[in-house]
C-alpha cells in the first residue's frame, strides 16, 4: 500500500498557479485513473483534472477557493499494490518538498514522475550548485600557445591592455620586460620594476634651465616640520646602519599567490606587506628595537605602531598603523593601503602621525637599491625596503637569476647595539627569504 500525491500541474504552458474551484471527490472515495477529481481555474480557463492514480482518496490537501502554486500536492491517494505505483522522480519530489515543505519522512509520498507540467514556477534558486572541479574556461578561451603551430613561432609580448597602457605611460618597452605572469604574460609589477630599474633618471623630458638665477622657497608648514624632525633625530641619536642582501624570490612568489587568492581580491598586496609582517615578527624576537629613548629611561613598547614613510604632495610624512601586531595579514594589507591612500590625498589625521614605535621606508618604489634612513623622532629603529630585482645568486652551487633585495636599517646606538641590530635585520631578511617563518 503506497500513498501517491498529485501535485498541481501547469495545464496551460507557463502557468504558475491555479484556484481549486470544486472538489469532485472526498476522502474515502474510490477513484479510478482519469476520473475527474476536481475543477480548477487558471488564468486561461476552467479545467477538470483527471486522477493519475487508482485507489482510495486519502486526503484533500487544498481547499476549494485556495489558490495553489503549480507543483504543490493537492490530493493524496492510497494506491492498490506495487505494480500500480507511479515511478518516483526524486528531483521533482525535492522540488515539490521545497515548495510545499510538507513531505513527511514516514510515508514515501512520492511525486508523480513527470517533467513538463511544472515548468514556469519552480525555477528559483537561492544558491549556486556545488562543484567538484573549478569552473570551466570560457568557450572562446584558448591560450595563445594552443592556437596553431604558426603562432608559437612569433614571440609576441603577452600583456593585458591596462598593463600595455602603463608601460606606454612609463615609457617602458614591453618586449624588454621580463614577464613573471603564470601564462608568460607581463604583469604590472614587472613593468614597474623595469620602470624603476631602467629609469632612475626617468624623466623623459629634462626641463630647461630656469631663466631666473634663484628661487626662494619659504621654510614653513610641512617642510619646516620635516627639517626640525630630521635635525632632532640626526643630532640627538647616534645613527648606525646595517645592510644585508637576501634572496627574496619566495616572497615574490608568496605575494603573487596572495594576489591570486580570492581572500585578497581587490586588496593591494606587495612585498612591503611581507616586510612589515617580518618586522613585527622580528620585533617579537628583539623587543628593544621597538623602544623610545628618554634621558631617564628606555621605554620598550610591547605593541607595534608601524610607521610607513609616505610621500605626499606636500612632503614626507610618517603615519602609523596602531597595534599592527594584532592584525591578520589581510587586515594589515587593508590598513596599509588605507594609510597610503589617505596620505596621498593629504588627509592624514594628526593622531595617526604620533606615537609610532618603528618605521619602514620604501626606497624601492623610487628605483633605489638601499640607503641610510634617518630615524623617526621618538623611535630607535627604521627599516628600508629597496628594489627587488633579478640578480645572479648562488643556488645549490650554481649561479641562478633570483629576485634579490637589500634589507637596510638604521638604529639609535644609545639603545641598540650592533648585535641586536644585526640579529633584528637578519630576522627581517630571513622572512624575506622564507616567508613560511611567519608560521612560527
Amino acid at each position, binding site marked *: 500500500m503506497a500513498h501517491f500525491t498529485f501535485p498541481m500541474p501547469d495545464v*496551460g504552458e507557463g502557468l504558475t498557479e491555479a484556484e481549486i474551484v470544486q472538489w469532485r471527490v472526498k476522502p474515502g472515495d474510490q477513484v479510478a485513473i482519469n476520473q475527474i477529481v476536481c475543477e480548477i481555474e487558471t488564468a486561461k*480557463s476552467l479545467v477538470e483534472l*483527471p486522477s493519475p492514480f487508482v485507489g482510495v482518496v486519502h486526503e484533500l490537501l487544498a481547499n476549494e477557493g485556495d489558490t495553489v502554486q503549480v507543483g504543490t500536492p493537492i490530493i493524496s491517494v492510497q494506491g492498490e499494490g506495487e505494480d500500480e505505483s507511479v515511478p518516483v522522480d526524486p528531483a521533482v519530489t525535492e522540488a515539490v518538498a521545497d515548495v510545499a515543505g510538507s513531505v513527511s519522512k514516514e510515508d514515501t509520498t512520492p511525486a508523480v514522475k513527470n517533467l*513538463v507540467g511544472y515548468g514556469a514556477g519552480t525555477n528559483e534558486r537561492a544558491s549556486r*550548485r556545488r*562543484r*567538484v572541479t573549478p569552473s570551466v574556461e570560457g*568557450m572562446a578561451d584558448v591560450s595563445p600557445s594552443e592556437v596553431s603551430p604558426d603562432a608559437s613561432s612569433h614571440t609576441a609580448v603577452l600583456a593585458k591592455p591596462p598593463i600595455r597602457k602603463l608601460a606606454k605611460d612609463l615609457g617602458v618597452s614591453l618586449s624588454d620586460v621580463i614577464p613573471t605572469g603564470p601564462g608568460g604574460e607581463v604583469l604590472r609589477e614587472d613593468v614597474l620594476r623595469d620602470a624603476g630599474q631602467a629609469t632612475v633618471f626617468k624623466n623623459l623630458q629634462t626641463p630647461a634651465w630656469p631663466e631666473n638665477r634663484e628661487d626662494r622657497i619659504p621654510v614653513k608648514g610641512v617642510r619646516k616640520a620635516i627639517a626640525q624632525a630630521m635635525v632632532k633625530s640626526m643630532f640627538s641619536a647616534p645613527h648606525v646602519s646595517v645592510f644585508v642582501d637576501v634572496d627574496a624570490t619566495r616572497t615574490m612568489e608568496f605575494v603573487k599567490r596572495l594576489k591570486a587568492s580570492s581572500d585578497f581580491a581587490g586588496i593591494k598586496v606587495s612585498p612591503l606587506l611581507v616586510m612589515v609582517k617580518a618586522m613585527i615578527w622580528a620585533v617579537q624576537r628583539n623587543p628593544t628595537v621597538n623602544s623610545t629613548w628618554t634621558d631617564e629611561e628606555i621605554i620598550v613598547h610591547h605593541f607595534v605602531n608601524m610607521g610607513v614613510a609616505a610621500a605626499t604632495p606636500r612632503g614626507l610624512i610618517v603615519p602609523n598603523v596602531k597595534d599592527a601586531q594584532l592584525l591578520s595579514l589581510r587586515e594589515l594589507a587593508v590598513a596599509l593601503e588605507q594609510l597610503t591612500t589617505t596620505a596621498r590625498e593629504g588627509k592624514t589625521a594628526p593622531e595617526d602621525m604620533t606615537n609610532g614605535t618603528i618605521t619602514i621606508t620604501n626606497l624601492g618604489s623610487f628605483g633605489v637599491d638601499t640607503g641610510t634612513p634617518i630615524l623617526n623622532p621618538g623611535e630607535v629603529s627604521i627599516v628600508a625596503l629597496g628594489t627587488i630585482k633579478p640578480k645572479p645568486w648562488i643556488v645549490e652551487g650554481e649561479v641562478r637569476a633570483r629576485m634579490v633585495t637589500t634589507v637596510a636599517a638604521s638604529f639609535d646606538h644609545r639603545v641598540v647595539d650592533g648585535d641586536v641590530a644585526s640579529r633584528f635585520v637578519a630576522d627581517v631578511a630571513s622572512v624575506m627569504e622564507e616567508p613560511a617563518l611567519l608560521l612560527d
Partner: protein
Amino acid sequence: MPYTDSTLRLLGQDGILVKDDRVEKYHQAIEHLDEKDFREFFRVMTVVRRFDVEAGNLQRQGHMALWVPSIGQEAAQVGSAFASRPQDHIFPAYREHSVAYIRGLDLLDIIRMLRGVTNGGWDPKKTNNFHLYTLVLATQTLHATGYAMGIGYDGACSTGDLDKDEAVMVYFGDGASSEGDTNEALIFAQSYQTPQVFFLQNNHWAISVPVRVQSRTPLFERAAGFGLPSVQIDGNDVLMSYAATRLSMDAARSGQGPHFIEALTYRIGAHTTSDDPTKYRDDDELKFWQAHDPIDRFRSFLEGRGTESAFFENVAEEAEDYAADIRKRTLEIQDPPLEQIFRDVFTEDHTVMTQEWEWLKEYTQSFEEGA
C-alpha cells in the same frame, strides 16, 4: 448551417447511403470495399479517439506541456488515409493522429514530441512516408509540392500503373489556407502539374478565429481559382472522405495534375489544452456538430448492415487496452541525452557543434552529482 449545395456525401447522418447523381462516381470508388474494410474504418476511428482522450488526460496530469486533440475529425482523416496507396507520401500538419496511426506510426511518438523529448519523433522512411508534424503553419504545403515536383522529375508518376505511380497528399487546415505558403504551394503545384492532393480539413476554427474570417468564399472554390479540380465533401462521412481522396489521388498520380479536397468537419475539442473554446464558441454550434459525430454516423451504418454488438464491445475493449498501454509507456519516457542539443544539427562535422558540446560536457561534470 455549414454545409453548402456543393457539399458531397455518400452517407447521411442517419448512416444510410445517399442516392444522388452527383456522387455516382464516388459510389463506384468504394465498390471494392467490403465488410472487413468498413469494420477497420470503425476500429481505427474508435481506437484513435480513445487514444486522443487518454493523451488529453495525460496532459492534465502533467505529462505533456500541451496536447493537440483531433476529436471530431476522425472520418476525414481515416477515409483519406486509407484511400492513399502505400507508395504515396503524406505531409501532415500537426493534428493528423488517425493518418499517423494508419501509416504505422507508434502514436507514443506524438506524445514524445509534445512532452519535449524530441522536435521530430520519427523517421518517415519507417512510417510509410508519413512525414514529421510541422508546427509553423502551412510550411508543409511547399515541402509537399516540392516533393511532388521531384516525383515528376523522377518519372515516378503518370505511367498508368496505379500501384506504382506515386502521389503526395498534404494535410492543412482552414487557418493555414490563409498563409502565403499555401497559396504559393498551389501556384507551384498548378504550374508544374504536380501529382498531389491538397486535403484541407476545414474544422471551422483556427484557435479562436472562425473560418469566415479566413475566407468569404467556400475554400474549395479558392483552389478552383488557381486551376485545381476541386471538391467540397462532408468530412464526417468516412466513406465520402475515402472516395473523394481515392479518385483525386489516382487522378493526380496519373498525370492529371494537382487536386483539391475541402473536407467539412469540426474541431470538437480545443485547439490545444492551453485553449478555452468556451470563451469564443457557441454552445449550439458545438451541439450541432456533436450530433453529426463521424463515429456515431458510421456505427449507425454498420448496425444498419447487421454488424453484431460483440464487434463494438471488442473494439471498445481494444481501445481501452490501447489507451492503457499508451499511459504505461508515457510514464516510462526518458529524457533525451544532453548531446542531442548538438548532434544532428548538421549532417557533416561542424567545429562549433564539437567545441560547444565539449564545453557543456566539461561544465556538467564540474558539478557534484545531483547538485
